[in-house]
């Protein structure tokens, strides 16, 4: 009798599997190599926010004969660490989304291979020092403090303008930021304060916390729940977000935006793409980098990934052109400094903010 139970279990499993509602029969579709033996499948490893319009990718596949497989690997940090851990057997051919806060860890580990992809006009200033042709800048965005301008004008109060203002009593309990340890914009804002205050950042953050700053885990709940202009009916009119955010709070007639970014509080985030060392299809990988830098893909960046292109002469969406002002001189830190100090900073930041 006992023998029959596993048989029944197996039969049950097989019956359900055979019922057809299953993924496993699907397969990958398409050949992995073309007739001349060249691999056609190219695997792009990227972060969760990656997106490009499907028709654009389809046109590229048709033109080049490659088939693009996109694999997401978490946020920028998770992506970088996965690339580092799997560098002997890379999980794809090309990676996009490693940013300037994480890039030197990947470069130090030898994740990327040198390629000869030509940079478009305008991309040069975004190059990572020491990248040596291994990674190419694809997009940029600035993390800035945003204010609900309508909230302040309705109360006839002046909105803050600088880092220092955020610690003044006039702005007590009005500021919310995502945490540096759990959120990429939160990290960028933290780095901006380090770039500004150097080793004095601990003193600054102590004053910031003493002034009633709220720390959330992610950008979504800072902006959507706590921020007054985020739609969740929050009570804090000052939030850490992006320089492009004002383009999403535009009035119905399109003439004005109710929020604005404080351009003296910005930190520049640049995202890079590069061919992975040991890739099965390095030529395909380079073709994907070219795709990301192409005029069409660069023009799609604002609407697909909410970032600015690095290429000059790309037309921005109307709301962006009008309301997404980029800071003339955003803060920056050398990537090697970030990598060397990240762990210490994060531990100290956690101590200061969870006191």
């Amino acid at each position: 009798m006992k023998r029959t139970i596993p048989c029944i279990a197996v039969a049950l499993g097989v019956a359900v599997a055979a019922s057809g509602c299953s993924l496993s029969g699907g397969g990958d579709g398409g050949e992995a190599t073309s007739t001349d033996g060249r691999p056609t499948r190219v695997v792009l490893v990227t972060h969760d926010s990656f997106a490009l319009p499907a028709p654009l990718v389809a046109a590229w596949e048709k033109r080049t004969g490659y088939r693009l497989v996109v694999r997401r690997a978490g946020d920028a940090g998770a992506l970088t660490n996965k690339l580092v851990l799997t560098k002997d057997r890379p999980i794809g051919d090309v990676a996009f989304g490693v940013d300037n806060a994480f890039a030197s860890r990947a470069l130090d580990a030898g994740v990327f291979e040198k390629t000869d992809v030509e940079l478009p006009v305008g991309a040069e200033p975004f190059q990572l020092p020491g990248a040596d042709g291994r990674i190419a800048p694809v997009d940029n965005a600035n993390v800035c403090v945003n204010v609900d301008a309508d909230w302040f004008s309705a109360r006839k109060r002046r909105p803050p303008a600088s880092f220092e203002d955020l610690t003044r009593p006039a702005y007590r309990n009005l500021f919310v930021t995502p945490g540096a340890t759990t959120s990429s914009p939160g990290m960028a804002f933290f780095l901006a304060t380090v770039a500004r205050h150097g080793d004095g950042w601990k003193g600054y953050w102590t004053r910031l916390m003493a002034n009633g700053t709220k720390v959330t885990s992610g950008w979504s709940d800072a902006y959507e729940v706590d921020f007054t202009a985020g739609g969740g009916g929050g009570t804090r009119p000052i939030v850490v977000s992006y320089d492009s955010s004002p383009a999403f709070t535009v009035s119905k007639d399109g003439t004005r935006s109710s929020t604005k970014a404080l351009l003296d509080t910005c930190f520049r985030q640049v995202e890079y793409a590069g061919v992975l060392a040991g890739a099965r299809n390095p030529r395909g990988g380079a073709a994907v980098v070219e795709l990301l830098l192409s005029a069409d893909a660069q023009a799609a960046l604002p609407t697909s990934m909410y970032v600015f292109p690095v290429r000059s002469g790309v037309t921005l969406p109307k709301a962006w052109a009008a309301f997404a002002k980029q800071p003339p001189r955003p803060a920056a830190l050398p990537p090697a400094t970030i990598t060397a100090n990240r762990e210490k900073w994060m531990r100290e930041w956690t101590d200061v903010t969870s006191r």
Partner: protein
Amino acid sequence: MDGRDLALSARRAQGRRLATLAALAALPLAVLCVFFVLPVAGMLRRGVVVDGHVDLGAVWDVLARPRTRRVVWFTAWSAAAGTAASLVLGIAAAHALYRLRTPGRAALRAALTVPFVLPTVVVGIAFREVMGPAGPLAFLGLDGTPVAILLALVFFNASVVMRGVGSAWQSMDPRPAEAAAALGATPWRVLRTVTLPALGPAIASSATIVFLFCATAFGVVLTLGGLRYSTVETEIYLLTNNLLDLPAAAALSIVQLMMVTTLLAVAGRSRRRVDVARVPPRPRGVRRGDAPAVAATLVLAALVALPLVTLVRGALRVDGGYGLDNFRALQTAGPGDALAVTATDALATSLRTAVDATWMALLIGIPIAVAVTRTSRSAAERRLRGALDGAFMLPLGVSAVTLGFGFLVTLDRPPLDLRDSPLLVPVAQALVALPLVVRVLTPVLGGIDEHQRQAAASLGAGPLRVLATVDLPVVWRPLLVAAGFAMAVSLGEFGATSFLARDDRPTLPVVVYQLISRPGAVNHGMALAASVVLAAACAVVILAVERLRVPGMDAL
């Protein structure tokens, strides 16, 4: 027959039993080794082995930090408190919705299970909208406190207790309780002295699972605790994901494994069997004595309803008014065609994946449940079966981050080059669902009197007939509960799925996550609408599964 023959035949019987055990356990153990032991060991090795030498120095350093002690302590007490609260409300709901003929109980049971599938990031935001500055419960001042975390843990887990205990309660023999009542015991006394002890194994089972869920809860702790509270799980995430400090992450993973193993050992001791009735009793009408249970159920319903209502309201909000625009937008690829697939396609993928994960979880879970509930003839055999039981609970207690990174670094070369396999997602989900399946089946399966099987066999029933007439009538309902659970787990699973899902076929929770991290009211509205659809899909699946009838058993 002389003594030697007897000993020989006893040894043969023992050998046969162990062979059966091995046969039953072979496939599940192989799956466990490849998809759990190997990846976790791979990550631990990278943390502990430095330049080819085992170096425990870094591990000790981490364990000695005061922060680590604080984190472990908070994890332990928040999980214990979350489990206790889930038990109280869950058991009350099990009584009210499985044993009593309360109006609308099937719908309510399905509704209470909905939180189980909701993406934590969305629930976190919904909770904050309820308790935050502008929410209906703002006056309680709970935003960012440990109480908020506890409420969320109960929100997610009370239904696990309700379903686990409920299904055992449903098939429990009511006569002892009736006898006690007839002899003059008060309802409270009957509950304390007859019913709860009889339900002990089912309660211990559910409590173990809920504790593991609470101890490894991740998203809600981060979102609701405002980063002030860290658990072992959130620390491992930070150390692995952000800092790539593998020795420290390995140290905490080891702590986590030890906590879980201790817990499982303790829970294993308390596990006995439920006496099941051959023909389960019909639910009875509501009496005055049921008031506390009904009241507690209503409290639970309110706790579940508040964030859900906020969610639905948010999904319907359009430009200052209300409408269905967000739901209509789910058939598109979102603003700027930014999604790889439409949300409706993602839902189809979710449902297909759920079917796969469910049959896998049952395929692995049923043999385990059978193997661990067969009668043991020796202490060693009993320990062996107990260890087998515990081994399949481990995946619940280990960080999804560790497991996810482990997949990438270990399943990367033939014959186990599985990183590309489309089966990886359902297998990972099945592993998460597996403990639930086993926990639901074992109390009932173990409660079947072996003599009934023997009696049936001696009356000439074949093995299949025995199974169909003795085991199935009692087990089929818990089996459906288990299948429903597995589907719900799969529908809502995000941690493992997010980095395994291939981009051309993301599941609905992955799409929700993408939408919610983008700016703009439309993306936010679509994320909430997609969550509502996910919740509705879960409720429908669970209602449908519960309504499945095995031919000839409608009498139940």
